[in-house]
């Protein structure tokens, strides 16, 4: 989103530099793997084939990426309005609650083709409602959005634990889980859809949510760059005072952008609840809301970038699991270190290599 420095071809900026960053991260991670006495080549091979090697691996990678697209888009939309929405975790959690409540109430009354859109609407609505309160506090009371959205993550967790333990728990269940939804109340799984057209793939949690995620990405792009409200939103993000001077009602824009952000995050709850698990339980978001922040930063807050970053994070999550699976001495904590290095190099140190490349290309063209 920031201005590209002159003298650097676009393919270097969006292709070569990120690739070098990832390569550097894998290099450092390889040294750590070497230090604990395993082969870095084998580790990288397992991670790559584990994430992209065959149908099942790709299914899991795309399933994780689906969540990250939703939460990444949520952060990106708010970011364009100059707001840092850290509440994706809570908004996704509440979005999932919305889906779950609707399904528990209606799953035995309505057919599946009606339940899915209801679930979609409620996930977005609940997520938006959860974001609306911090949004209003930010716009009209000046409470800082970072603080309030963090606090709302904890409120969401406390609310859902209360509901799960005391109200929604299935009778006789040891775990705090609701009953399973009726078979009508689920999004079609990708392996079922592909099976119908004759393509056989293994069981994965990948479901139709990914189509919704792609649609959401296109929708966000259209909204931000091709609608008046999207223009106003970006204007407020660049300079709120200039926007007000131009006649934009910035407070409304702040509330609207955060509600949209919350709605997008809420859809991650749709993927988990209606797409994969078909019941309500605790902590189904599992950090996807926070990962969304890194996804948006790495994707430069552009829908295409968010999509690519989400794929990378999905691949890291899935490949990391395979790594822990195949090499017992690499624990899940080690996997987090490797994932952290990739985030550090390609997110936080994104501009680190740029000066060297600029010098290189300046010399080349000069």
């Amino acid at each position, binding site marked *: 989103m920031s201005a590209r420095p002159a003298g650097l071809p676009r393919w270097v900026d969006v292709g070569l530099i990120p690739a070098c960053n990832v390569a550097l991260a894998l290099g450092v991670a390889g040294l750590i793997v070497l230090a604990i006495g395993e082969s870095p080549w084998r580790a990288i091979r397992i991670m790559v084939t584990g994430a992209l090697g065959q149908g099942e691996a790709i299914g899991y990678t795309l399933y994780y990426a689906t969540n990250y697209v939703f939460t990444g888009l949520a952060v990106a939309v708010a970011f364009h309005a100059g707001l840092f929405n850290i509440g994706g975790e809570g908004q996704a959690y509440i979005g999932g609650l919305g889906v779950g409540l609707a399904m528990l109430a209606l799953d035995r009354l309505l057919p599946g083709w009606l339940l899915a859109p209801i679930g979609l609407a409620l996930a977005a609505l609940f997520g938006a409602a959860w974001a609306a309160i911090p949004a209003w506090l930010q716009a009209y009371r000046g409470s800082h959005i970072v603080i309030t959205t963090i606090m709302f993550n904890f409120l969401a967790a406390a609310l859902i634990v209360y509901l799960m333990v005391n109200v929604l728990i299935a009778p006789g269940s*040891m*775990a705090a889980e609701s009953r399973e939804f009726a078979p009508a109340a689920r999004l079609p799984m990708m392996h079922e859809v592909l099976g119908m057209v004759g393509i056989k793939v293994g069981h994965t949690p990948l479901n139709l949510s990914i189509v919704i995620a792609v649609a959401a990405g296109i929708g966000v792009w259209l909204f931000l760059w091709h609608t008046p409200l999207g223009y106003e939103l970006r204007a407020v993000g660049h300079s709120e005072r200039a926007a007000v001077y131009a006649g934009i009602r910035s407070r409304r824009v702040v509330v609207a952008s955060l509600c949209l952000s919350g709605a997008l995050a809420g859809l991650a709850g749709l993927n988990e609840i209606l797409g994969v*698990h078909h019941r309500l339980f605790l902590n*189904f978001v*599992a950090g996807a809301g926070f990962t969304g922040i890194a996804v948006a930063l790495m994707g430069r807050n552009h829908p295409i970038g968010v999509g690519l970053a989400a794929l990378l994070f999905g691949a890291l999550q899935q490949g990391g699991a395979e790594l822990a*699976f195949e090499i*017992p001495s690499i624990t899940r904590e080690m996997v987090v270190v490797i994932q952290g290095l990739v985030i550090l190099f390609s997110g936080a140190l994104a501009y680190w290599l740029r000066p060297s490349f600029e010098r290189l290309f300046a010399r080349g063209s000069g």
Partner: protein
Amino acid sequence: MRSIGLAIGLIAFAATAQGQELKPAVVFDMGGKFDKSFNEGVVNGVTRFTRDSGVAVADFEVTNETQFEQAHRRFAQRGQNPIIGVGFSQGNAVKKVAGEFPNIRFTLIDSVVELPNVQSVLFKEHEGSFLVGALAALASKTGKVGFVGGMDIPLIRRFQCGYEKGAKFVNPNVEVLANMTGTTPAAWNDPGRGGELAKGQFDRGADVIYAAAGGTGVGVYQAAKDRGRLAIGVDSNQNHLHPGTMLTSMVKRVDLAAYESFKAAKDGNWKSGIRVLGLKEGGVDWALDQHNEKLVTAAMKTRIDQTKADIVGGKIAVHDYMSNNACPN
């Protein structure tokens, strides 16, 4: 295609039946392998099995709920057999994957899946808690005993109810103070808050506290040591943590469940169905060793042994909270 798969399955099954190629695996709960309590108990059982039999055991620690199913399926595809699922959160995953792989044997700890290739292992935590509750009331000089639970879920209320019943059994006038640490999974690993709750209960007059709270218990035991009062450990034998202030531990032998499942598979007599391990089966017990023998007088020991014999013999029926989700007075 299917018949080939079936044939391969049968060959694999025959091979394992002869004990030639046993490839056991464990999927751990979110707490991780080294939680000093529940999961670590399984690790101990698995280590013992590997030492005794020389058979290597594969394992996996999940980082989110979706991975339960993924891990079980991956192990099953690799031909790992039997596979142990640790903890009640894995019930749905085991149900799904065990249905897809009818030739792979699954053992599920703390929950029930009724399939012909699943062994479900449950523990009567209320019986063990009853015993340590009785011991707490016997050791208490103030007539007040405390309970610190982890996350407020039915399983922990089962511990609490058994403990209260045990304390009231030996002293009908005893007062039981009870707190839960929290409502999120963080409550399993919050020693700071555990310590604060314990101090609060000590201030209100309790002099023995039972912690059924995973890693949070460490804070409770430390508080007991700092105040010179008594604490009771849980799941693993935790007496050694603070000799002199650890009155006893309510041990839940998940190590035994894991060990026996693998051992039976090796010997060719693994059985599916529900196993309920109580005091009688040695699945739960109270711990008496060199670290706490000075705290337990001969009279106390006699009384507890008698109570244990009565529960085993059926003379005392301990109420199970989860039978009706209530703890009647």
